[in-house]
């Protein structure tokens, strides 16, 4: 079985934690405006991404992750380092 892509794994976490439909989780979707996240959700999401992808996201970088696409790109870049 093929490994899941980063995009798929990110989407799964978002669907699980925010209780949204998978179709809503497009790369352009903004966490707060489009997916109904509040300030606590965003903290929890970043924690879950850190855990899933074994990365550390400093607070000042976490603040810049506004959309689903931002997160996917961020994790892809980190993986290349």
């Amino acid at each position: 079985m093929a490994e899941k892509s980063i995009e798929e794994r990110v989407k799964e976490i978002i669907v699980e934690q925010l209780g949204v439909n998978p179709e809503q989780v497009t790369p352009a979707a903004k966490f707060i405006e489009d997916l109904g996240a509040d300030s606590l959700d965003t903290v929890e999401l970043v924690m879950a991404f850190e855990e899933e992808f074994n990365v550390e996201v400093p607070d000042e970088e976490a603040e810049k992750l506004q959309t689903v696409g931002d997160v996917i790109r961020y994790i892809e870049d980190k993986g290349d380092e």
Partner: protein
Amino acid sequence: MSQNRRVVITGMGALTPVGNTVSAFWESIAAGKSGIGTVTAFDVSAYDCKIAGEIKGFEPNAFFKNPKDARRADRYAQLAMAATKEAVAHSGLMAEGVALDRERVGVIVGSGIGGLKSIEDQHSNLIAKGPGRISPFMIPMMISNMASGLIAIEYGFQGPNFAVVTACATSAQSVGEGWRLIKDDDVDVIIAGGSEAAVLPLGLGGFGSMKALSTRNDDPTRASRPWDKDRDGFVLGEGAGIVVLEELEHAKKRGAVIYGEVTGYGTTCDAYHMTSPDSGGAARAIKMALKKAGLNPDQIDYINAHGTSTGLGDVSETRAVKAVFGDQTKVPVSSTKSMTGHLLGAAGAVELIACVKAIEHGLIPPTINLDQPDEECTLDYVPHTAREAKLTRAMSNSFGFGGHNATLIVQKFA
């Protein structure tokens, strides 16, 4: 306080180890059915006490608008929300066409312990993964006032909102303080009650260390046996009880069905010991409730006792009842904890609901497992099976660690 404002019950909701609705709860306790069993929530092989009253088949998502909201609520708050949904639906308060001033609706829903599961889970995260992995939801999930807060958010109730935290007297006091707020004309409606979800490693282990729990592990349904000479402690239970308290004219105006009237509330403290009871404090609470209701002891037809099945507590409550009602009193006294186990912060409201149903059906739920009363326990405890009786006024007692005592009186509405 306006003596003219009367407070009635227009809705009830309950989740208990013997049923997840008020009607299922009532059918079970009227039939003398126990809800106690071996704990299924976690592995109890290392615990002295391996039994509890657990809620069966609970699916929290059904009680929240968004599944996300269920996930970010501790189990105690989930149970409180579920019981509230039943009570509010039962009351018709949110039905179409009801003109409700939501600034005049308050919520007083407490918990003896609060979100213990959230504390356990996040402490495990702290130890295993470090402080950076503590959920941002731990604090809002664990605090004992969050059930009250979530209920207000769910319905937009903007009146007074707080949580009573007095261990096993919590929800009796919640009802009593709500009664006061309605009488004071601060509000027209209070959602009152309590919730508890402490059947967890720290809950079972903590009460176990106090030697407060029954260890009749091989015979769970016979473990909770208030006033019996072979009782060996209480049985931990989980659940929630919620009542909709409403000012009488407000209820009448919208054509609400009235299930009973709360006429008395007394609350005191033993000021004696952290956990051991002093019967004088309980007796004073009972007297205070009678005085508020303008009743003499002989006008009470039934007492739903605190009756936890502990050595000291059962004797102490018996003494308190005798001190107020007289040594030779014939008042029937029963403990529905013999069937539900001890729901801690949910107990008072659940047992008030038992009183309302007992009055409605003219049936006193029994104290099961009372085979041979302790020689110091000589009241009429309605052993084994329910008893038919014409009931007009019932009293419910609740006493909590810390020496908190609360007594409520509910009567048939007339």
